[in-house]
């Protein structure tokens, strides 16, 4: 077992986390999130050209079609592009065909690999159910940990969860990365993972609280973090290895998802140590806390 004094850095890291949270919230409020068509409605076309194509050629062509604000991005290489615009007209069966025909005036040999068309009603519902899902999962975690631990622990775990979710979303806002359905899935998984990490350390804290009555919580959390450290690191590493494989080799569609997960795992690991535990210290958890609880 290693013996690193994590507790010496509780304060500086708490300040950093606080700053990160504040700037993330500021970003979310003032800059907002870059919603994909899942949540904003509109049309997405992934197209592949036969040979490398200049993006401005495609942009000019789409701009002439009167589709409103069109965004075009390269998708992994110089042949694949993703085109997004707010106009969606799925009730006109020729809508996509017309776009294809217009495009063929300036572009030869291309293929629509993927077309998505989400109406405003559906996108509103998807957004609502995404938000509900995240809130529900936070509530469910809170409930679970409340049943399993004392309230001081639940508070610590939940604040750590919020920390991870908000900073991950802040990161997506800062770099204008797209938020779509798979990001919601990633956030939910992050919630599960972060909780998992926190619970492992908390289990040890509680065990040590029963064992040692003379160690202050400040040192006791440090002891528990050190005792579980190699597990924390190994699990984070294997999970990150798997996620990196998805990020690098899993194709463009899974890029956003795996990036969100990678961030979430890093923040989740960090917050279990530097957010959840300092809160136990702050709330002055002691042997009495758990013994009183056991009597009930």
């Amino acid at each position, binding site marked *: *077992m290693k013996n690193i004094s994590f507790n010496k850095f509780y304060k500086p890291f708490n300040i950093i986390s606080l700053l990160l949270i504040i700037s993330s919230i500021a970003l979310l409020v003032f800059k907002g999130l870059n919603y994909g068509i899942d949540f904003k409605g509109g049309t997405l076309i*992934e197209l592949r050209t036969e040979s490398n194509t200049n993006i401005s050629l495609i942009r000019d062509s789409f701009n002439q079609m009167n589709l409103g604000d069109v965004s075009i991005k390269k998708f992994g290489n110089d042949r694949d592009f993703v085109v997004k615009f707010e106009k969606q007209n*799925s*009730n006109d*069966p*020729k809508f996509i*065909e017309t776009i294809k025909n217009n495009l063929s005036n300036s572009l030869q040999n291309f*293929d*629509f*690999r*993927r077309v*998505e*068309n*989400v*109406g405003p*009603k*559906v996108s509103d519902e*998807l957004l609502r*159910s*995404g938000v509900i*899902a995240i809130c529900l*999962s936070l509530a*469910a*975690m809170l409930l*679970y940990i409340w049943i*399993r631990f004392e309230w001081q622990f639940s508070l610590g775990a939940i604040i750590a969860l919020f920390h991870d979710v908000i900073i991950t979303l802040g990161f997506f806002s800062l770099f204008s990365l797209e938020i779509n*359905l*798979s990001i919601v*899935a990633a956030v*939910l*998984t992050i*919630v*599960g*993972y972060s*909780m*998992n990490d926190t*619970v*492992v350390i908390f*289990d040890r804290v509680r065990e040590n609280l029963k064992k040692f009555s003379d160690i202050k919580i400040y040192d006791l959390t440090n002891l528990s973090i050190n005792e*579980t450290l190699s*597990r924390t690191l*190994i*699990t984070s*590493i*294997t*999970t990150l*290895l*798997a*996620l*990196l*494989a*998805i990020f*690098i*080799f*899993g*194709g463009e*569609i*899974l890029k956003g*998802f*795996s990036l969100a997960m990678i961030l979430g795992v890093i923040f989740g690991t960090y917050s279990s140590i530097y957010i959840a535990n300092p809160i136990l210290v702050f709330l002055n958890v002691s042997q009495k806390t758990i013994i009183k609880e056991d009597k009930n």
Partner: protein
Amino acid sequence: MLYFSKLRIISVLAITLFISYFTVSNFLNFDDEFNSKNIKLGLDLQGGSYLLLEIDNQPVITQKLQSKLLEFKNFFNDQDILVRNFNIINNEIIFETEKDKIPSIINLLDDDKSEINPYFPKFKSHEFIFKNEENVFSLSLSDYGLVVLKSASLDQAIEIVRRRVDEIGTNEPNILKRGSDRILVELPGLEDPGRIKSLLGKTANLSFQFIVQNDEESFGTEKLKFEDGSEESIVSKRIILSGDNLIDAKPQMNSQTNETVVSFSLDRVGAKKFGKATSTGVGKRLAIILDGKIISAPVIREPIVGGSGQISGNFTFQTATDLALLLRSGALPAPLSIIEERTVGPDLGQDSIDAGIMSLIIGFVLVVLFMIIKYKVFGVIANLALIANLFLLVGILTIFEATLTLPGIAGIILTVGMAVDANVLIYERIREEIISEKNPIIAFDSGYSKSKTTILDANITTLIAAFILFFMGSGPVKGFSVTLGVGILTTLFSVYFIARLITSFYVIKNKEKGQLI
């Protein structure tokens, strides 16, 4: 924790082999139903079209109110109750009566045995709810009445959608109800949904009505446009014949004019009606109307009595084929609109599968190598459990014929990364225990038992997230929650039965050796 009875060993092996068998069967070809179970690929992996349709029930409600209005009128007339000024405003039927008739009308409407306003004891609700202000009554559909109406119209719409999709002949279409007014259509392998969208976007209400001069009709008239937008005509509101009486329709080449037409045949009632109308109407123009637009309006030269006829109207072979298909499959009860569409081409699907498998292999190899470097022999044991875990996971997905999506593959890879966690927790615990306990068997035993609650806690949290995602998520994301959730269960099984079994064999055999772990 290290002791396994013979029975237990056998059952662990039997379960593992049984489930793993289905993983293997995915890659083999079998003819019978039991062995040929396969994981279904989601539309994002095999390519195809996903359409979400919403039904606009207003026409159905209006129609219901109109027919109910007539029923009320006749009913009160039969009861010798004076009612007048019937009207429909904002989905309410409104009528007036004499002051002294109010109580008897209320009685008739509010009675549990009411003939005109049926009462459903199960739902504690009449079909219509009513209010009266002085001598004016207004009736509107009750919540239950609306539900019944909507669900009937949705059922009917699904039937028609199914017929139209089947006529096109795509492979294994999936057509499902979604909520009270939506239909989900999944069309695997379909690359261009343009045609099916135009077919589903049409209500296909066909009627034959005479073209008339100004207001000479007692039924009333309406002004309708021609399909090509060229002109307008005044049409009698009397419907000679509607699409309901059609029994068949097909595209045909008219040998005389060399024009593509749609020929149709009528049932007996339809043939009779059509014969009668055409014999009295020789010389008149008969408009053929589809969804409020006139397709064509030929002049009747002679009575048509054989129960069959032709529709002409500048068709290409394709448009004639589509019209015939629409007429054969029948009219939708209300218009459908497409509110969500996702189409993936087959080559993108294949690329996604390749990328998914590639990252699975690489992720797996990295994790396996890491575990061997970190834990040596026990790393190998954890890796064996990991392999069994993958076989179990894919096997269970196969048994339930679950749909595998791209996020679903990501879920499997993530399972690979997180699955070793439980073994790591156990091994780390054993390393701690072994410091104070010299007997390796006891140390291993307590390592297993002391890490148990932690492992359960840690996995339950992820399972909660997967559950919520399953119920709230849609489409491909649901596939992720399935693999993630099932992955946790198979992980626990592989850690507590398979890895522990191998560990116990190894430890008991090598207990004399020094540092085991």
